[in-house]
């Protein structure tokens, strides 16, 4: 058997209970602080081009996932300096990306880009995700592709 640790005389329960409760309180407070203070920055909103444009100036700098169809004829530039237009049928947003999308990226396909709107009115993408649904149906106006698979997950 392992050596029994020397048994100290028990500390009076009254004092000890406060210590434990204080510990729990501190843990809960720190946790709540960490959870709530970081929340607003950590949220990523899914938006359609119409929703994004409706936000106007306030959308600038906000982390967003923008979903739509890659407008035919709008894709320009090499893979690492790519410009294209995403549309939801009503409105369109020009997207610039310096990260290469996967091979299946092409005109007319559904795509989701993650990034933020810049003051120049161009959406700067840090990630281009091609829709990963086998039974893909083009989104109707104002509606997002229902199943987006993030390659980062």
């Amino acid at each position: 058997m392992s050596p029994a640790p020397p048994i100290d005389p028990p500390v009076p329960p009254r004092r000890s209970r406060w210590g434990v409760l204080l510990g729990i309180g501190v843990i809960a407070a720190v946790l709540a602080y960490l959870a709530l203070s970081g929340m607003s920055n950590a949220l990523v909103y899914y938006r359609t081009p119409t929703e994004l444009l409706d936000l106007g100036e306030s959308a600038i700098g906000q982390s967003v996932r923008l979903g739509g169809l890659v407008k035919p004829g709008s894709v320009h530039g090499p893979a690492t300096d790519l410009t294209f237009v995403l549309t939801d049928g009503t409105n369109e947003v020009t997207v610039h990306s310096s990260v290469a999308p996967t091979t299946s990226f092409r005109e007319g396909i559904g795509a989701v880009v993650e990034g933020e709107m810049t003051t120049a009115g161009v959406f700067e993408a840090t990630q281009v995700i091609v829709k990963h649904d086998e039974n893909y149906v083009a989104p109707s106006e104002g509606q997002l592709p229902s199943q987006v698979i993030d390659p980062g997950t």
Partner: protein
Amino acid sequence: MIATGGHVAVVVGLAATLFAAAAFALAARGDDRGKAALGRRAMIAAFGLAALACIAMVTLLLTHDFSVRYVARNNATTTPPFYSVISLWAALEGSILFWTLLATGWAALVLHRYRDRAPTLMPWVGVTLALVAAFFFAVMAWPGDPFVRITPVGTEGNGPNALLQNHPFMGLHPPLLYLGYTGLAVPFAFGVAALVTRRTDEAWLVIVRRWTLVPWIFLTAGIVAGAWWSYAVLGWGGYWAWDPVENAALLPWLTATAFVHSSMVAERRGALRIWAHALVVATFVLTLVGTFLTRSGVVESVHSFTASAIGPWFAVAIVATLTGALVLLVWRLPDLRDTRPPGGTVSREAAFLFNNVLFLGITFAVLFGTLYPLIVDATSGERISVGAPWFNRVNAPIFVALLFLMGVGPALPWGGARWPTIRERFAFPSLASAALVIGGWAIGLREVAPLVALGLAAFVVTVMGDEVVRGAHARARSRGEDPPTAAWRLATRNRRRYGGYLVHTGVCVMAVAVAVSATLASDVTATLGPGESVRLGAYTVSYDSLVIEPLSDDPRVTETRAELTLSGPQSGSLAPALRDYPNSTTPIATPTVRTAIGEDLYVTLLAYDPANRSVTLHLFVNPLVVWIWVGGVIVALGAAFAVWPEPRRRPLPAAAGA
């Protein structure tokens, strides 16, 4: 014919589980051994029927019987036999069938093993397990029928989900995870039985701790295997992304782990008994929540099965279980009072209590982050997701605190500690910890996370090592054994404690590996023409040629491979690829990973241009990643050591337990 047989097996299985539930209920009322035996046989029959249904499904998949919808959607004539077999759990209906097989298997095993050992508890355990199994059979009989036929019958099926047929690990990760998930119904059943029969003493805890640890081993292995799969298949260079479904597997793991700890206090000191019961309930409910999240289409995730009608069934089951269990718990609250006064602030009890508070803290945080998008969507219609940085920010400090407690807890005496004891036990580990941090700093480590992880890991391991050495030494002296024999006998006579130490060692290994790989990884993206090369750290990767050809074992799949030559600390040829499956619009990444003890070189092919043969590569140097898997194996081995059945021997004198 076979499909009809499978369907009949499901329906009869439902009848058998309902019969078992009724028999056990009658047995409980009348204390009737005969009826309990009847219920037990019905559960074993239900297991047999679930096995028959699974065999039927596997046969249908192997014979490519496209008259069955599940086969038509998840199989093709060209699917290799291995992937046909594992397609049993590749999609919604089949996975529920497989789940039912495992759930009834655990139930039959436990009911059989404990038939004579806990006669008062067993009828209620039987009722609970039978009802859980009946629920899954009912789901298959109505909304999630795996044997539904379709007409007209096609000559070719859709093939399995491309992501799932790209790596043999799919044969390992889901079964391990499901074994864990389904096994956690067993402690829940014992918890219910203990509350109903008011046998809330230590006896049920002994059974339940063992039967929480057994599924816990599988759940842990399943989660680690899942991370490994994500790393080896998805091609993004990472292994954990706080994806809703990863979280769904983590949640019951967290509460089960908390239970394993608080049950020790409940058993030894008669304290934290409400916690123990509540955690058993929470763990089971969270396994249902996990199933619900994965299979109802409410969350968007790499794991989500197609949206289906079974969501409401699970929602009802979750609410019913939670309500029933809470009512039971409140009703029996007077029986669950602590039987002894609580320990001091600096005592082992307190360490366990803080451990539980922290585990619950992570559980709430993860649950909140996972469900928050659903709440926002339901209330404001905004679609959002909570990013991984939030999860890291909230959870990292808690994990640090848990690591600290892992070192402190085992060395603190029960009841309360005085300053001299504290000084005596922690002086050396604190020095070792400081030495390692300074050493890390000296070799140029500047990131906070690895330094903290390293320091705490050193602290924990030294505390445990110190304890083992002292114990072995004392035993060697008093019994005249040589030290290694003494250490081995000490460990095998006290499996729970030393198995736990091994688990903690594995966690320390993982913690350091995670902290280092998360902060010290480097990567580069480059587009190369033939003959060009790219450097990352000490590695040089040069691009030789692009090969596009059908896969040898499945000609419907086209593989595009970039043939590369690697030089540096490791050398040789690499061939990251993209595979185009006929049923997938997106090519599936097939990254190449070169693993060494210190770091992995991870190369993934992002894109290629067939016109000018250029390729875009993403290279990562991921330090210590292999140690995450090694740590996971150590954790599983340690837990297996802890639950390994001890040879029957005469009970030791009461004073022997430490």
